[in-house]
C-alpha cells in the first residue's frame, strides 16, 4: 500500500495523511464486510473449513510424532567383534566407543560369560561341552545418545563398521525407520491436500471480492477519474480481503479447537496404552499466530490479485 498522495497542507504531514487514509479504508471496508452478514459468514466458513482440515491433520501428526519420539529409547547397536580379538583389545575398543559423542553407553559382553549364559539358558550343555573352543565372539552393545534419529543411528553403525575389530554390526532400527517413513508420507499427504484446500479457499475469497468489486465499479471509476491513485482505489478492497481472511482464520481456530476436544478422548486412551501422560490436542500459540497470519495473508493476496486484474481490465477497456 503506497504512501499518501502529495498535496498536503498546513502541518498535517504525509505520515498523518497516510495513516488517515488507511484508517478510513480500514473502517469503511469493515462496515461493508459486516453489512452483508450472510455472504460474509459463508466466506468465513468456507475459508475456515479449508484451513481447519489441514491444520487439524498437521496437529494430529505432530502429536503422534511426540508420542513415538523416544518410544522404548533409541535402538541398540550390537557389534560382533572378530573371533580372534582378545579381552584387552575388546576392552580398549569399548572404552574408546564409550567416549564417542553419539554414544550414550557402550557395554562389553565377555565371550566366556556369554557362553556360560548361553549354556545355562539354552539347555545345550552337552553340546557345548563337545566344542573344542568358544565360538562366541566378544560383543559390544552400543546405546546411541538420547534423541538420536534414524540417520544418526545409521551414521553410528557405519562408524562402528569401520573399526578393524568389528566383524558385524547389527542395527535394530527397521521399525523406527518404517514409522519415520509413514510419518513422512502423512506429512506429504497433508501438504498436498492442504495446499489444494488452501488454493480453493483463496479462490473463494477472490470470487467474493470480485463480486463486491463489481458492485463498486462506478466508485472505483470515479475515484480514479478525480485523481485517486490505483493504490487509493484498491485500498478498501485490500482491507476487505484482510477482514475476510482474518475472520476465516478465527473461525478456523475455533474449529480446530473443537476438533481437538473431540479427538482428545481416543487420543488419551491411546497415550495411556503407551504409558504416556494424557494431553490435549491444542493449538499452541505459534500455531495460532501462524494460522491467523496465514489466513489474513491469504485474504490480502486474493484481494491483491483480483483488484490488480480489475484495474488492468479498466485500463485496457
Amino acid at each position, binding site marked *: 500500500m503506497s504512501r499518501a498522495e502529495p*498535496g498536503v497542507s498546513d502541518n498535517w504531514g504525509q505520515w498523518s495523511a497516510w495513516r488517515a487514509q488507511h484508517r478510513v479504508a480500514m473502517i469503511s471496508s469493515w462496515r461493508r464486510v459486516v453489512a452483508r452478514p450472510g455472504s460474509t459468514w459463508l466466506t468465513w466458513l468456507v475459508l475456515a473449513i479449508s484451513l481447519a482440515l489441514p491444520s487439524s491433520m498437521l496437529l494430529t501428526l505432530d502429536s503422534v510424532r511426540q508420542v513415538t519420539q523416544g518410544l522404548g529409547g533409541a535402538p541398540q547397536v550390537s557389534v560382533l567383534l572378530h573371533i580372534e580379538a582378545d579381552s584387552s583389545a575388546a576392552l580398549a575398543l569399548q572404552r574408546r566407543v564409550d567416549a564417542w559423542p553419539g554414544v550414550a553407553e557402550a557395554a562389553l559382553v565377555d565371550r566366556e560369560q556369554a557362553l556360560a549364559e548361553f549354556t545355562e539358558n539354552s539347555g545345550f550343555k552337552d553340546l557345548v561341552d563337545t566344542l573344542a573352543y568358544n565360538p562366541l565372539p566378544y560383543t559390544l552393545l552400543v546405546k546411541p545418545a538420547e534423541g538420536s534419529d534414524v540417520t544418526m543411528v545409521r551414521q553410528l553403525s557405519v562408524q562402528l563398521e569401520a573399526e578393524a575389530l568389528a566383524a558385524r554390526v547389527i542395527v535394530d532400527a527397521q521399525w523406527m525407520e518404517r514409522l519415520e517413513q509413514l510419518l513422512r508420507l502423512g506429512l506429504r499427504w497433508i501438504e498436498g491436500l492442504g495446499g489444494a484446500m488452501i488454493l480453493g479457499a483463496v479462490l473463494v475469497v477472490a470470487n467474493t471480492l470480485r463480486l463486491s468489486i463489481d458492485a463498486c465499479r462506478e466508485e472505483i471509476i470515479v475515484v480514479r477519474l478525480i*485523481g485517486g491513485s490505483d493504490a487509493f482505489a484498491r485500498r478498501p478492497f485490500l482491507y476487505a480481503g484482510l477482514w475476510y481472511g482474518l475472520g476465516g482464520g478465527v473461525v478456523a481456530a475455533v474449529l480446530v479447537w473443537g476438533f481437538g476436544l473431540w479427538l482428545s478422548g481416543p487420543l488419551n486412551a491411546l497415550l495411556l496404552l503407551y504409558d504416556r501422560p494424557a494431553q490435549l490436542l491444542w493449538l499452541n500459540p505459534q500455531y495460532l499466530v501462524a494460522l491467523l497470519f496465514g489466513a489474513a495473508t491469504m485474504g490480502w493476496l486474493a484481494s491483491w490479485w483480483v483488484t490488480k486484474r480489475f484495474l488492468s481490465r479498466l485500463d485496457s477497456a
Partner: protein
Amino acid sequence: MIEFDRVSRRFADRDALRNLSLTIPTGEMAFLTGHSGAGKSTLLRLLLLLDRPTGGEIRIQGDRTSQIRGRAVAPYRRRFGIVFQEHQLLFDRTVYDNVALPLEIAGFSPRDTARRVRAALDKVGLLARERAYPASLSGGEQQRVGIARAVVARPEFLVADEPTGNLDPRLSLEIMSLFEAFNQVGVTVLVATHDMSLISRFRHQAITLESGHLAEAGVPL
C-alpha cells in the same frame, strides 16, 4: 494553457479527431460545442488521459502529456476538477463525504477538509444539505454537489462534460454562472455543451467541432 497540436484520434472504423489544433489560455473560459459525435467527448477523454491520441501532441502549461504515464497519471488528473453530466456521485456517502473525496485522496487534514468542503458547499448554496444523501437531492442539487466536489481542491482547470444536459434552462443558466464565477477567480474552465442558446448568453470563446475538425473558434456575437 491547454494546447492541442494537430491531435488525431483514429478508431478502427472512423476518425474521431483529425489534426485538431486549438489553444485555451490560462485563466480563460471556453465552450466546446458541436453535434453529438463531433468529437467533444473524445477531446475531453484525451485531455484527462483516459485515452491517448494516435497523432499530434497535447500540452498542459507547456508539458507534453504523452510523457505522463503510469503513476504520474493520478497526480496529473488532480490538476483538474471534473463535472460530469451524470454527476457521478457516490450514493452511499453523504453530500459532505462526496465533496471531501478529492481532499481525502490528496491527504488533507480533517480540519482543513472541513473548512474547504463547507466553503465549496456554501459557494454552490448547499451548505444546509451536507448531511443529506445524494438520492434525496434534486437533479440540479446533485449537479451542484458535483461542482462543489470538482472545485473543492482548488484545481488549475475545471472541465465539465454536458453539465446542464438534464437541467431546465433556468437551472442551466445558474450552473453556467457558477462556472463563470470560478473562472473569475482564475480557474481555466472548459465546458462541453451542445446548448447553443446558453453559450450565446456568455461572452467566452466557443470552439465548435464538426466530424473531428475544428469548424469555428471565437467569441459568439
